[in-house]
C-alpha cells in the first residue's frame, strides 16, 4: 500500500456519479487522485501533474477520450503513462479501436469494482 502512495491517478469522466465511485475506489487504494470532467481539463492536469495512470471515459463533450489518449501517447514526456479506457462503448470494434490508439487496458461499463481495483493495482506495480 505504501508503495502506491505517490502514484498519481487521473480520472476523466463527464458523469459526476461515476466520478464519485471511481474517486472513492482509487483513494481507498492510496493513489493520489486527480479529477477532470472533460478532455480539456484532462489536458491541463496531464501537462501539470504527469499522472502515471489515467482512467479515461470516451464519450465526453468538447474533446473525447480518443483525443486525450492520442495526446498522451504521442507526447514524449507522457507516453509512458498508462491509459485505461472505461467506456459504455463495449462492442468488439470499439475495444479494438481503443487498443489501436494506444490504450493499455479497455474496461467496458458497467464494470466490477473489485476487478477494476485488481487490474489497476497490477498496473501500478508495473509503473513503479
Amino acid at each position, binding site marked *: 500500500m505504501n508503495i502506491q502512495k505517490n502514484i498519481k491517478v487521473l480520472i476523466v469522466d*463527464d*458523469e459526476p*456519479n*461515476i466520478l*464519485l*465511485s*471511481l474517486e*472513492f*475506489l482509487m483513494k*481507498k487504494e492510496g493513489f493520489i487522485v486527480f479529477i477532470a470532467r472533460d478532455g480539456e481539463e484532462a489536458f491541463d492536469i496531464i501537462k501539470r501533474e504527469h499522472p502515471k495512470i489515467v482512467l479515461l471515459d*470516451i*464519450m*465526453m*463533450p*468538447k474533446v*473525447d*477520450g*480518443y483525443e486525450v489518449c492520442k495526446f498522451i501517447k504521442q507526447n514524449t514526456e507522457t507516453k509512458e503513462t498508462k491509459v485505461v479506457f472505461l467506456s*459504455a*462503448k*463495449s*462492442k468488439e470494434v470499439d475495444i479494438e479501436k481503443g487498443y489501436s490508439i494506444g490504450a493499455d487496458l479497455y474496461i467496458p*461499463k*458497467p*464494470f*466490477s*469494482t*473489485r476487478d477494476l481495483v485488481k487490474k489497476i493495482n497490477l498496473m501500478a506495480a508495473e509503473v513503479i
Partner: protein
Amino acid sequence: MNSIILGIISIYYLAFLFFVAYQAEQKTKKGKSVVSNANIYSLSLAVYCTAWTFYGSVGRATADSIDFLAVYIGPTLVMFLAFPILLKIIRICKTQRLTSIADFISSRYGKNRSLGVLVTIICLLSGIPYIALQLKAISNSFGILTNSLSNPNILTDHTFYIVILLIVFTILFGTRNVEATERHEGMVAAIATESIIKLASFFLIGIFVTYWLFDGFQDIFSKAHLIDSIKKNFTMKQDGGMSMWFWHTFLAMMAFMFLPRQFQVAVVENVDEKHLNRAMWLFPLYMLLINIFVIPISIAGGIIFSGKPVNTDMFVLSIPMHYSSELLAIMTYIGGFSAATGMIIVETIAISVMVSNNLLMPIFLGIPKSKSIINRNPSAVVQYIRRFSIALIIILGYFYFKYITEKYSLVSIGMTAFVVVAQFAPSVLGGIFWKRGTQKGAMAGLIGGTIIWFFTLIIPSLVSSGVLSDNIMNDGLFGNTLLKPYELFGMTGMDNISHSTFWSLFFNITLYFFISLCTKQTSLEHNQAVLFVDVFQYSKAIENSTVWRGKALVSDIKSLLESFLGQNRTERVVRMFAVRNNVNVQTRYADASFVNYSEKLLAGIVGTTSARMMVSSVAKEEDISLDEVVEILKKSQELMAVNKELQQKSQELKQLSEQLQAANEQLLLTDKLKDDFLSTVTHEIRTPLTSIKALSEILYDNEDLEHGERQHFLNTIIKESDRLSRLINQVLDLEKLESGKVRVLNETIFLDEIIEDAVESIEQLAKDKGVKIYKIIDKKLPNFHGDKDRIMQVMVNLLSNALKFSETNKGTITITAYNEDSNLYVNVIDDGSGISKEYQELIFDKFYQAHDQTIKKPKGSGLGLAISKRILELHNGKIWVESEVGKGSKFSFTIPIE
C-alpha cells in the same frame, strides 16, 4: 421631279427588298428562321392590301363613300369567324403536301387533272388583270410625281424596267427550292417588311393631311358637311345599299381565303398552325389601322381639289404634290410601290406553281419526247418551267396593263377578280365539309360560275372598251332581253358586282350540288373526300398509313425520287422513312407505304396531278375501296393509341421502380437509424447502471463507511435508478409516437390553461432553486384542437429544461404566447448557460450520436426534446431554438389553429 431620280429610288427600294430576303434566307440556312414567327405571319397576310388599298380605297371612298370598307371587313370576319375553316385547309395541305389552290381542288376530287387545269386558268384570268392593276398603280404614281405621261414605247417606259427587276426578284426568291413545300422564307420576310412600309407611309400621309392641313378628324368632318357632293356620300343609298354591303363583304371573305396570293401566304407559307392564333387579332388590327385615314384623305382631297379634274385614285400623291412636299410624296410613292410589288411577287409565285405543276408539267409528261427530256433532269426542268411561268405571267400582266386597263378605276378590276375567285368557294368549302361532293359536280359548278362571271362582268368591260358593240348591253344576248349582262333574268336594283356574284354563285352552287348528287365518285375520289373531310380525325394517321395498293419496283420509285431530290437526298429520305416506319426498302417490290410516301414527296415538287401521273407510270395499281381506306386509317390510329398506352405503361413502370428504390433506400436509412438509436439507448442505460453497480459494490464491500457518505451513495443510487426508469419510459413513449401507435386526441385546448398548469407543476422546484418565472400571454388566445396531455408534456419539458439550466438564485424564465396569422406561438426564454450553435439542431434529434461520433450533446436533454418535436409534428406544428452560450436560450414552438 426628275424621273431618273425617282427611278433610282425605286431600284434602291427593290435592292433593299433583295437584301431583306437574302438575309432571311441566310438566317434560315443557319437554322434560325425569322419567318417562323406569328408576327411575321400576320404581317405577310397583309399582302391582301395591294396598291388598290393604297390608292384605290381613297378613290372608292370618294366615289362610293363608306362601302369601300366592306372589302376590309370581309377578311376581319374570316379571321374571327372562319378561323376553323382556315385551320382545316392548312391541316389538309400539310398532310397532303398541297402547294396551291389548284392542287387543293384537284386533289380533293380524285387528283383530277382537268380540275387542276381549270382552276389554274381561272387563277390566270383573275391574276393577270390584277397584276396589271398593280403595274398601272406604279405607272400612274410615277407619272404624277414626275409629271409625265405614260410612254407608249415600251423601251422608254420606266414601268417596263421595273417589270424586268420584279421578274428577276421573283425568280430568285421564288424558285430557289423546287419543292414548293419548302416555303419561300426570303419572300415572306420581304412581304412582311413591305407590309410595315406601306402601313407606315399611309399613316404618314394620313397624319399630314389630318393634322397638318386640317385640325384633326373633327375639323375635316365638319368641313365636309359644307360640301354637298361629299355629304351625299355619307348617307346610305336606299337602292340596294345593304345588299351591296352584304355581297361585297362576302366577296372579300372569299377572296381573302382563295385568292392565289392569299392561299400562298396563309396556307402554303404557314410554318406553324399556332401562328393563326396571333393573326386572328393582329391582322384585323392591321386592316383597321390602314383604313383609319382613308375617309379623311378622301374628304380632304374633295375639298382641296374641289371642281378640278384630279384622279381621285391618286389623292394620296396629289395632295403632297399640291403642297409641294416632295419628300412626303416620295414616301407615299414608296408605300404604294411596296403594296404593288408585294402583290405582284406573291401572286406570280403562287400562279407560276400552278401553271407549271397543273398546266405545263402534265402536258410535257404526256408527250413521250418531252417526257424523256424531263426524265433526264427533272428538277432542272421544273425549275425552268417555273421561271418561264413567272416571266410569262408578269409580262402578260404588263401587256394587259399597257393595252387594256387604261379605262378602269383601280377598284373595278380588283372586284372583278374577287368575283371569279369566289367561284372556288363551293368546291373548296363543299369539299372539306361534304363527302358527297364529286369531281363532275365541282367541274360543272366552276365552269358554270365562271361563264356567268364572264358574261356579267367581262363582256360589259369589253363593250365599254369598244371591242364589242353595245347591242348586247341593251338588247341582251341573241336579242333576248332576259340575257342582258347587267340585268340577267331581268334582275335589277343591284350593283354590277353584287349582281354578278349572286348569279355566278347561284349557278355554281346549284350545279355543284345537283350534279354531285347525280354522279358517282371514283374510289380514289371517295378516299380523298374522306381524308379531306375527316382530316382532324385522321391527320396523324394519314401521314403514317397507306391508302394505295399495287405493285411497283423499288428501283423505279427510287430513280423517280432521285431525279427530283438528287441521289444523296433520296438515299437520306429513303433511309429515314425505312427506319421511322420499320419498312424494308431493300426488297424488289416496293412496300405500299413507301410508294405512297414517295408520291406525296413528289406532289410537293410537281403538284398532285403530275406526281400521280409519274407514280402511275411506274406502278401497276389496284383500286382500293373506301371501306378499306377507313379500315386502314382506323388501324393506324388504334396502333398509335396502343403505342401511346404502352409508352404510358412503361413510364408508370419506371416511376414505380423509382419509388421502390426510394422506399428501399428509406428502409436502409431507417435500419441504420434504428441501429444508431439502439446503441445510443444502450449507452444511455449503461451510464446510470455503471454508477448504480459501482456504488452498490462499494457499499457492500465497505461496511465501515461513514454515515454521511453512505447516505450520499445510497441517494445517488436512487437518483440514478430514477434516471434509468425515466429513460426507459421516454424510449417507449418515443417509440409509440414514432410508430404512430399512439392516439392523438382531438380535444379543445385553451393554451393559457396549459401554460398555467405547466407552470404550477414546476413552481415548487423553481422556488427551491430561486428562479423566477414570468408570463406574458395574450389575453385573447384562440383555442385549438389537439391532445391536451401531449401539449402539456411539451410545455413541462421545456420549462423543466429551462429550469435545469438556469442559474441558482439568479435565473429567470419568461414565457410568452401570442397568435399571429392563425398560428399560436409559444416561447420559453431562460438566461441560463445557453447552447452552442453546433448543438442547436442536434438537441431535437433522438439519434444525436451518430456511429463514429464520440462527442456528446449537452447534458440533460435526453429524449425530451425529441419527444416534444414529434408531438408538435403530430399537431402540424414546429419547434426550434435560438441560443447564445452564456446568455441563455429561447425555445419556441408554433401550432396552426386549424
